């Protein structure tokens, strides 16, 4: 049963389980997941890019051994890509194949009226569940054991698309006019992510729990690096996290996120660096900074940044 899953009995369990998956999270994240599971509420995860929003969904799916169904949002995404589509090809093929059958059915019918009423008896055979092509949202509803539905980067989709989600998010059901309402067999865990490039509508926010994941603090980031790049020496790890934390205080076009820190740690590992000196930093700045302007800015400040670290 959904409720009774032993994996979701306490917040500490969740945190520990995620730890084991290599996803280090604070209680806030674990609490949100716990609430989402027990209250059957979708979670809207916001935060700067690269702090592990998408990763969270993957971890949840892995932790609960549920299939992860992902819907990547983009401008122009519509219901035929997100909800369902009719299998037109199949419908056409069937009409052609069944054409002869029609003759048999209508054989012996008296007049147009009777033929019609005989046809009516067959109902809307061509608009039945067999002809539906499920897209991610419908697929998530149809998973017999539940699933984790990730609606990624919702802010990229059009405003109208949000309204499309409302029915799914509040009632876990989809209305298909030709068939009726399809209700989720087992309510999926829905995780929506947004990079905050635009405000998500109130109607949608109201239906979701809200989780804001900021950049991690030094201690948490250390743990993340420890878990993700365990080969890295303690000293270097401390230096690295320290440096990144300092850079985040600067006025940059794009601040380095956790994913960049991890990349950087791997880079340093590959270069067999054992301490963070100025040359290495200069040569690998492009791993953490993605704009030439930013790189130049930080390069100019490198002596100051490195000096502060040593003290």
């Amino acid at each position, binding site marked *: 049963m959904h409720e009774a899953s032993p994996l979701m009995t306490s*917040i500490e369990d969740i945190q520990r389980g995620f730890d084991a998956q290599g996803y280090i999270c604070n*209680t*806030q994240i674990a*609490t*949100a997941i*716990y*609430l989402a599971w*027990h*209250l059957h*509420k979708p*979670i*809207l995860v*916001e935060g700067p890019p690269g702090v592990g929003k998408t990763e969270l969904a993957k971890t949840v799916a892995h932790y609960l051994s549920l299939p992860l169904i992902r819907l990547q949002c983009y401008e*122009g995404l*519509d219901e035929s890509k997100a909800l369902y589509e*009719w299998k*037109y090809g199949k*419908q*056409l093929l069937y*009409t*052609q194949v069944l*054409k002869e059958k029609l003759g048999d059915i209508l054989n012996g019918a008296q007049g147009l009226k009777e033929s019609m009423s005989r046809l009516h008896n067959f109902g809307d055979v061509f608009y039945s569940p067999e002809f539906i092509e499920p897209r991610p949202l419908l697929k998530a509803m149809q998973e017999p054991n539940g699933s984790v539905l990730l609606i990624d980067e919702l802010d990229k989709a059009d405003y*109208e698309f949000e309204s499309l989600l409302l029915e799914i998010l509040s009632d876990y059901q989809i209305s298909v006019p030709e068939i009726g309402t399809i209700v989720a067999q087992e309510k999926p865990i829905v995780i929506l992510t947004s990079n*905050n490039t*635009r*405000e998500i509508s*109130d109607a949608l*926010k*109201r*239906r*979701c*729990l*809200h*989780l*804001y994941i900021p950049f991690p603090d030094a201690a948490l980031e250390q743990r993340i690096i420890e878990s993700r790049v365990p080969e890295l020496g303690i000293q270097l790890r401390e230096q690295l996290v320290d440096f990144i934390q300092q850079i985040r205080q600067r006025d940059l*076009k794009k601040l380095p996120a956790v994913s960049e820190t991890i990349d950087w740690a791997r880079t340093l590992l590959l270069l067999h660096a054992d301490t963070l000196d100025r040359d290495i930093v200069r040569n690998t700045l492009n791993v953490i900074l993605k704009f030439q302007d930013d790189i130049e800015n930080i390069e100019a400040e490198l002596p100051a940044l490195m000096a502060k670290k040593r003290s």
Partner: protein
Amino acid sequence: MDRKLVDFIRVLRNADVRVSTSESIDAMHAAALLGYHNRELLKQALSSTLAKSEAEKESFNYCFEHFFSADTPSLSQDSVEQWPAANKNDLSASDDMPSDTIVDNTTSFEPDISLQSDTSEHGSPVEASLANLLMANNSNDIAIAMAQAGEAIKVNNMQVFTQKGPYSWRMLKQMGMDELQETIRALEQNRDPAQHRIAHELTERLNWLREQVRDFVEKKYLLFASQSRQKLREEVLKKARLSSLDRLYHRDMQLLVKKMAKKLASQHARRKRVFKKGQLNAGKTIARNISNDGIMFDTHWKSKRRDRPKVFAICDVSGSVALYSRFLLMLLYSLHEVLPKVRAFAFSNTLGEVSNVFAQYSIEKAIELVNAQWSMGSTDYGQAFEDFSSLCLDSIDNHSTIIILGDARNNYGDAKAQLLKTLYERSQRVIWINPESKSMWGGGDSEMPRYAAYCHDASSCNTLGQLENIVERLLRQTS
């Protein structure tokens, strides 16, 4: 506890966190699930159910800290410490009394606990007279008594600041101040010096209690009554002249302006059209070809064409409109946020595109940068139109809207209204928003009458209310 939560939600609403009924229910479910024993957990649970944006989280944190400022465990029995009533040294120390007790009992003196269940466990403070209570010096009991008195006189209903005095007084009365004063008077009439001392001390402590009650009421006022202030402020903002607005209110203004810009933008709806290419609209094709014996003969294509609103916004940032330009730029910036394809231009004598600046920086920074780069020099509308024409006359077609924000004061230079006429003829719409009132148009170096001839809509706008009217009128015209 649910009632406490409802109170808290009211506080949140006052602090501009929008909480719907369904969210309140979620919060209650969440709280019930996690229990009230772990404060941090409760905070996180409520935060994820009630506060749904970064700004709201900030308000939430503030409110939470103030509302649930005392932990219930601090009311445990062991903190009851009798204070020797006849301690002489304490006459002078009575002012520091609360801080002392905080250190001693590691409990904070917080009057916010109004849990009936907790007080009933204690029992005594309810019956105890105020004098005993004060002499006992148990800050918890006093806090409870204060909270109960507050509840009894419904201090949460306070609406305006003038009520603070009466409420404090009523609270003290509720707590038994009259009796206490009676006691003090009786003690003073007594000849025994020891009794006098007690009377003196009681007076001291009563004064201390007055302060506490005042703080308590003040706090309640801040939590519960600020809503009316907020509403009042919004009303005032709408009517105030844009030039005289305090910097302080710019954040609120931003929100209002954004709302309006969104309204303006939303009229550009998506339109579906029949196309000769695109995706095969299979459903419709089948339906159409039933009459052709099911042979796909008359194909039907679908393609969505988003009516990309082409908005060109030109903003005067010169000295003559310095007071308004901040606001105009704000409108421009907000337009940019809701309509990513808007092209923004700023000028004083030469004109340049500023779309990039808006796209890259925050509103404060962007406005600062635009001002720094373009506001030097005296206004020259003629030159500006010339620059604008050479920059993007080609991209203006009958789907474009041109919005001009400026006072049309041209320093007696060449107006070059002809250029505006060309724009007027080519575009779908030219809107001029002028911060000066209509009676000023044409006076002095104002070229507004000449320009207005080539605008589909020229309006005066110097309050947000007027701007709202303009936006609404525009919407009516197009629909």
